[in-house]
């Protein structure tokens, strides 16, 4: 990759936020007439890299060349003027304006200082005709489907910049037919010599449309490969960070604690929700850790939302101790002894300005109801016990929780649920964004809890983590439960095989 005439060439890009490295020495090259996929799990640094390339963030390290000339775009407008246009997933165009107004906002054709609407209409028609769209450009953008809006956004971005087009999750809310429509537009643009960067987590789409792929993990470059020479399984292993080798399980000792013969007290049968997760069966025994694995967007978090009643299932039944239950809300789930630590700790987990003690007492208070308030003395005793047993630092019950580190916040949230003595605890990405020391402690805690007879469901994109703690692993792909591994089958290798196998049948 020493071609000096590459369209866009970024070398050694680095970026840190408040001392936490988001990108570390990443190289990225985009050729003319190429569709280049950018892949990685949440927090891998995809969006940071894109934001640096498109002028939203400024880089701390590295160089960036466009057509061989060094550039440093300081704003979106500057990147646009240089020739780099972006289409974001959600924040996109203005739905309250017409299609033509959206296409020409800020650069409307004018006659005698006034906007020339007729000319604007004519040019909009001509522009969209190049994308095979013949629509009423005077209709509001909101009257069209997401796919058409997406193409209008692409038309605007290409017309404005014309060298590099960045698409952030463009297919997230499109159906198959619409995706095909979008891809044919992208292929045509590629023939025109445009360089296109596409972020997506649908592997089939990557193989369908992209020429090359760059994979990031934990802010580092894993590699850039030509897709025609890259088997699916290898791509998955690049993303999930496990070389293909047989890994023996690390917790054989616990195997005996779970009696396979025991009737599972918590059962979900045919449980699912249309558009979210296909119906699945799940039995959870006491003292068992069920892992949930899958790529980003495969339905991991959606499964957790169903189990905890955040989303309501539209098929199947849930039962506890052979009694059917209706999980209509988290409140109902808590009443049944369920607990849930969400993935987005900062927004969905902690209440930043509340003290550690208040945060810990929250779920217990919710279960008792507002009529029986927990006194501040009880709260403090409760918090002190957990601070001691979970080693939360600093050991200060009254400190606002937002001043604690990520790992200690996570422990406090765990304490919140442990205080309610749950029988099923669902952990969504329990170790995301916490340092290595706390990471190991949390895994140890999971093991301890299950030896005490609690059931756990652990969702994680770190395969080593899952294989280390889980007795069984459910593999998800494309919002379906595609495989269940147990005992000696629980290896990173097998999980990746299962994901790849399902992706292959999908493509066929």
């Amino acid at each position, binding site marked *: 990759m020493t071609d000096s005439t590459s369209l866009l060439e970024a070398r050694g890009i680095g970026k840190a936020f408040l001392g936490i490295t988001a990108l570390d020495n990443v190289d990225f090259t985009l050729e003319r007439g190429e569709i280049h996929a950018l892949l990685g799990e949440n927090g891998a640094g995809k969006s940071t890299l894109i934001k640096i390339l498109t002028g939203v963030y400024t880089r701390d390290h590295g160089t960036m060349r466009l057509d061989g000339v060094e550039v440093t775009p300081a704003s979106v407008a500057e990147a646009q003027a240089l020739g780099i246009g972006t289409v974001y997933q959600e924040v996109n165009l203005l739905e309250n304006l017409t299609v033509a107004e959206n296409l020409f906002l800020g650069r409307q054709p004018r006659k005698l200082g006034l*906007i020339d609407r007729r000319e604007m209409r004519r040019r909009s028609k001509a522009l969209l005709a190049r994308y095979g769209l013949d629509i009423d450009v005077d209709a509001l953008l909101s*009257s069209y489907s997401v796919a058409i809006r997406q193409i209008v956004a692409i038309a605007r971005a290409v017309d404005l910049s014309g060298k590099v087009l960045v698409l952030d999750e463009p297919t997230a809310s499109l159906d198959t037919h619409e995706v095909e429509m979008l891809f044919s537009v992208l292929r045509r643009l590629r023939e025109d010599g445009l360089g296109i960067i596409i972020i997506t987590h649908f592997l089939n789409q990557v193989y369908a449309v992209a020429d090359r792929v760059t994979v990031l993990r934990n802010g580092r470059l894993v590699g850039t490969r030509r897709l025609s020479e890259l088997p699916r399984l290898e791509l998955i292993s690049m993303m999930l960070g496990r070389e293909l080798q047989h890994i023996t399980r690390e917790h054989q000792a616990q195997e005996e604690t779970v009696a396979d013969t025991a009737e599972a007290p918590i059962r979900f049968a045919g449980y699912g929700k249309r558009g979210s997760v296909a119906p699945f069966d799940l039995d959870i025994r006491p003292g068992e850790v069920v892992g949930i694995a899958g790529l980003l967007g495969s339905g991991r978090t959606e499964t957790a939302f169903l189990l905890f009643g955040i989303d309501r299932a539209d098929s199947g039944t849930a039962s506890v101790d052979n009694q059917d239950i209706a999980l209509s809300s988290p409140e109902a789930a808590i009443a049944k002894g369920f607990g849930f630590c969400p993935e987005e700790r900062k927004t969905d987990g902690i209440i930043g300005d509340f003290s550690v003690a208040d945060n810990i007492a929250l779920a217990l208070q919710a279960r008792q109801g507002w009529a029986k308030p927990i006194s501040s003395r009880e709260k403090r005793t409760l918090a002190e016990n957990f601070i001691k047993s979970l080693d939360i630092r600093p050991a200060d019950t009254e400190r606002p929780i937002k001043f604690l580190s990520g790992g200690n916040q996570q422990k406090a949230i765990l304490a919140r649920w442990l205080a309610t003595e749950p029988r099923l605890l669902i952990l969504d990405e329990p170790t995301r964004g916490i340092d290595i020391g706390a990471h190991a402690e949390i895994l140890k805690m999971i093991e301890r809890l299950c030896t005490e007879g609690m059931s756990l469901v652990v969702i994680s994109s770190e395969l080593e983590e899952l294989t280390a703690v889980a007795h069984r692993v459910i593999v998800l792909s494309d919002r379906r439960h595609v495989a269940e591994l147990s005992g000696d089958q629980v290896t990173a290798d097998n999980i990746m095989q299962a994901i790849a196998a399902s992706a292959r049948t999908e493509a066929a």
Partner: protein
Amino acid sequence: MIHSRNLPFVTTLAILIIAYALCVLQFPNMLSTRVIGNLLTDNAFLGIAAVGMTFVILSGGIDLSIGSVIAFTSVFVAVMVGTLGVHPLIAFAAVLVISTLFGCMMGAMIRYLGIPPFVVTLAGMFLARGAAYLISTESVPISHPMIDAIQGFYFRFPGGGRLTALAMLMLLVFIVGAFVAGRTRFGANVYAIGGNQQSAELMGVPVGSTTVGIYALSGFLSGLAGIAYTLYTSSGYSLATVGVELDAIAAVVIGGTLLTGGVGLVAGTFVGILIQGLIQTYIVFDGTLSSWWTKIVIGILLFVFIVLQRGIIWYSNRKLAEGRLKEV
């Protein structure tokens, strides 16, 4: 075909026509150019201020300072001309500069300090009202040959109605306002910011200068409305026009502009003003009704329009969802 986004405007227009027809049925005398001429003159200052408010609301903001700025302007002009003997044109120019700068300052605070428009313009409201009291707490009469000339100037309609200078000024402001909103880049930017400020920014709209411009325009038009009010009452009084900003907001909303911003027409605000004026005229004709009925009817209309707007949004969302289902 009527676009769903123009539905609120069309509804307002229909309500105006029907209401006027009903009034005429009861009081045939209301169908005269005299009534129309007076209606325009009586609401001229409110109409001018409401044009500024339309831009503010289209951008998703609010300006509570309008009534106070009008009072300040009228007292300022009255004292300059009536007490100090300054030429009216100089007083007008000075007060327009002050009110425009005042609007600029509020816009800059909203944009660059990130303070909500409600809070900034609330402070502006107290500030301008206080400044008016500071100049004079008395009602200051004003008399000048030029002002008399402006007040005496009018075109005669057939049928005896008068199109006064004030009414002409308001119509001119509405026409220019409609062009600025619909046919200039500034106007397009206002709609864009009202639609979604973050998207507008990512699409390269100069959000900062546009925001300052919007509140400067509102300040300028409040000043102009203050001048119109001074000419209308031949005096300046610091206790006057309390709550006029709320009448202006009512006219804008009844005119079909969404309070959340991004959707609406300057022409709609004109219809909103006419509806308010019509209700007042009806009460005068009736003679037995309390003038507070104006407020009650405006209140009911506002409720109706807010519900109507909700309904339209709900309906168009549903239609869009149905359309998507068919595609699949």
